[in-house]
Structure formats: C-alpha cells, structure tokens
C-alpha cells in the first residue's frame, strides 16, 4: 500500500465522519423532530438496543439475497456464455433481454406473490431477476472481445470452440465478470429488500415497513444503516476476491465494465 492509498483511505473515512457530524449538527441546530429526521447518534443507539431483535431479520435478508444472487449468477453466466459465443444468439436474444431488464422490478413483485405467496420465495426471485442482467451483459461482452489472431492460432491447431472458450474466452471474461458481480450483489440486495417491503413478514425490509407504520423513525433509519453496512460489506468481499482472481487485468489497464 502506497502513501497515496493511505491518504485516499483517510479522506474516505474523514468524509463519512464529516457526513454524520454535519447531519447531527443540522438536526440539533434546526431542532428537527425525530419523527422527521432522527439524529444519527439516536439511530446508532436504537441500532445497538434493537440489535437482538434485528439479527434474525438481517439473516433472513442476507439469506434471500445470497440465494437470489447465486441463482442469478448461474443464470447470467449460462445466458451470457450462449450469447457471447454465438453471434446469432446475441442478435436474437438481446432485444428480449433488454426489454425484460427495463421492467421495474417493483411491478414484478406482486406477480411473484400471486404465484408463490408472500415470504422468502418472491424475495429470492426478485433478487435473481434484478441481478442477472449485468452479468449476462458482461460475460457476453468479455467473450465477444477475444483477439481474432489468437483465435486463429488456436483454430489452426485444431482447437474446438469449447477449447477456445475454456482456455481463452472464460479467463478473459473474469475481469468483466467480477466487475458485474459487484454491481449484481448490490442489485440483489435491492431486489430482496424491495420484495420484503411489499410482501413478507420477515427481513429488514419488513422491519422498516412495520417501524414506519408505528412512527418509530429511528428504527427505520437503523434499518437503512444495516442495509448500507451489509451492502458495503458484500461489495468489499467481492472486490477482494476480484483482486485475487483477476489482478492481472488491473496491472496494466483498468478494465471497468458495469
């Protein structure tokens, strides 16, 4: 880690602290009611006190998110591979995929509830349906950008399409894949919470819904903080894995795709 990295991290931390301090000061100075905007200190106290109550809901949200995410990644990889390898499949399936991804997922939750009842299943499905698209796009792009010269070299050796996919296409796709995983995990989270808010009696989304109808505004904000914390934690975990697996891509040039 260089001095520049450390300075960068210090600035990030300072910005977060500054944000909460400004918020706190704003509430104190304007005499804001905690029914409208609670002070962050209040939120942290609520979070600490209600943590035993929140914990099972956190687990529930994490579980539905991760299940939806894993299924979404599986589906995304398969679809992306098919689309990336075959030009015909790419041209044929792309409009449908774009159309599907353009549908606001809030609108789909009631359908899932209708089919599967309220609870964990719609949450998992919403997470899945919202997170698979960036993975499809990135896998397909990564596969479509294999250098033609290398493909020629391997074809002249008698390599099959599968050989090229396995040895060149998929490894080359890894940076794109991990970039999309970071996006997808956040999306999956949004999907799961969204569904819990609409139709579930468990999960952070549901806790926030209930708290808001009881005017327990600090608890609503505590829920938000939990979500933000979980989102950051998952993002960091995938960034670390990414650095391990695809460090080669960031050494020379930054490959960023979302």
């Amino acid at each position: 880690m260089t001095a520049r990295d450390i300075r960068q991290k210090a600035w990030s931390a300072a910005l977060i602290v500054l944000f909460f301090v400004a918020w706190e000061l704003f509430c104190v100075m304007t005499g804001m009611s905690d029914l409208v905007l609670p002070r962050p200190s209040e939120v942290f106290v609520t979070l600490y006190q209600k943590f035993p109550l929140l914990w099972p809901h956190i687990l529930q949200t994490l579980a539905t998110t991760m299940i939806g995410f894993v299924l979404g990644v599986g589906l995304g990889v398969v679809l992306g591979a098919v689309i990336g390898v075959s030009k015909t499949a790419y041209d044929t399936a792309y409009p449908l995929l774009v159309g599907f991804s353009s549908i606001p997922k809030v609108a789909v939750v009631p359908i899932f509830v209708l089919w599967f009842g309220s609870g964990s299943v719609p949450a998992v499905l919403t997470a899945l349906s919202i997170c698979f698209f960036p993975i499809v796009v990135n896998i397909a792009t990564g596969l479509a950008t294999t250098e033609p010269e290398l493909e020629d070299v391997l074809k002249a050796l008698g390599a099959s399409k599968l050989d090229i996919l396995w040895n060149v296409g998929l490894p080359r796709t890894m940076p794109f894949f991990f970039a999309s995983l970071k996006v997808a995990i956040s999306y999956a989270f949004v999907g799961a919470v969204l569904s819990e808010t609409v139709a579930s009696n468990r999960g952070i989304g549901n806790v926030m819904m209930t708290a808001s109808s009881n005017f327990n505004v600090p608890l609503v904000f505590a829920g938000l903080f939990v979500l933000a914390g979980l989102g950051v934690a998952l993002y960091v975990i995938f960034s670390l894995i990414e650095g391990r697996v695809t460090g080669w891509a960031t050494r020379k040039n930054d490959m960023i795709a979302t």
Partner: protein
Amino acid sequence: MMRMQPHSEFSGAPVSASAAPAAPIAIELSDASVTFGRGERAVPALSKTTLRIADGEFVALVGPSGCGKSTILRLASGLVQPTTGVVIVGGREVAARALRVGMAFQNPTMLPWMTIERNIMLPLKIVEPFRSQFRKLRKTEFRDKANALLEQVGLKGFGSRYPWQLSGGMLQRANLCRALIHEPRMLLLDEPFGALDQFTREELWSILQDLWMTHKATVLLVTHDLREAAFLASRICVMSARPGRIVDDSPVTFSRPRTVAMTFEPDFVALNQKLRTFIVDARSAPAEGAAS
C-alpha cells in the same frame, strides 16, 4: 473472374527447389483463388495461384499491401477454404479439420493471466498426443520443453514472468516459442516482426534462422520487409497487387547461417533491388502478365 491466362510455371523465374521431385511437397496450391463475400460485394483476394513448397523449405511471400499474402497463409493453415482450385497441405486436401500448424502474427497475443511458460505450453493443451498427457506432464517434461525453447531464443529464466513484464521483442520471441512447442511440421508467420524496431528485428531474424535450422520445419513467412525476406528465406515469391498472384519466384542461395553484415554485401543489395523493382511494377500494373 478470369483476368489473366492461367499459369502453372512462372515465366522467367529460375526453377525453384520445389521442382525437384526428391523432397516431398509440404504445401501445394493448384489454381487456388479466394473471393470474400458474394455477388456485387465480392472482393477477390487471390487470383488463381499455383504454388508448391517442398518439405523443409523457408519461403517468403512479399508484395504490396493487400495483395493476398495473408490469404495464402490462411489457406495453408486451413482457416480459409479456396473458392476455386485445390489446396493440399501435408498430402491432404485442406478440409474443415485444421492442420495443427504453428502460427505467429505481428500481435504476440500472450494471455495476460498466464506466465510466459504456461502461455507457451498452450498448444500442448490442445494438440494430441500432448493433450491427453498435459495434466501429467505439464509440471515436468512439458515445462522443460518450454524452457528449452525459451533458452534457444535468449529468454532463459523468463518463463515464470508475466507478459506485461516483457518488452515487445521478448514477447515476439515467446510467440515464436509458442508456435513451435508442439513440433509442427509447418510454421506460418504473418509479419511476425512488423511492430519491432530495426535492431530488435535483425536480432530476431538470426533467432528465427537458428530455430529453422534446428527444427527443420517448413516455413512460410509473409513480410513487407525485403531485407527480412532475403535474409531468412531459401526462396522468395513476389506477389502482384490485389487480387494477388505470384509474379516472381526465385531461390535465395546465400550460404547459411547468414549474418546481418551479409545484408550489406553487393549480392544481397542487388537481390533487394531486384525484388523492389518487382513490387514497384506490381503496384503500378496490378493486372499485367508475369514480369521479366
């Protein structure tokens, strides 16, 4: 489509080594032509071309840009099928099945996530009989094989480095190693040194000459550089402008191993001058009959 009289002999050109029946034919193009696209959009890339390359020959193809040099190379590799005519490589007609030749392009295309050693071993993962033994031998025999090649091109000890740690010239040497690791009978090179500076290029000529003299593969080299062609090849074919065909085919008789110093001797300069004239003519009159 016929623009000229069909030719099976190259008028005026000295009889090449391939005419001797002793050496078996490695690559044979008989009246092969290639047209890309169809109908009004059809682009003729190669007119009816006949070319025989004997086993173990080092043939250089030179000509103005876009004349179909690379098309001949792709025909020989089986990547492109002739529109008309026949291409026979290693005694078999070129069909959909590839021929397991070694290829190298200007872009070294080393995979950035693998060490140089593993990049060079990539063909062994694909070509039988190495393929089925790859898991067993990749840490022993195959790795030694890769490192022996690296040593031969002056990259001893670089096997465990990653591509981004090497210079362009070094990558191109590694590229030659990758093209040779599976002991192909035929090496097809498409302007392999085109992106390198003059001194690195001359260095690599000698390395390639050494490789050819030890591995005894048939080499087909496409190049823009006439000095390169004259330095390396045992025979030079000059092509006309698009749609290309062969206008001159002459042997190069300088003794081997050749040195860079030899390229400044009068005989060598004269050969260069002669080749240059052919290409200048070819550029100005693409559809004319064979020169001289």
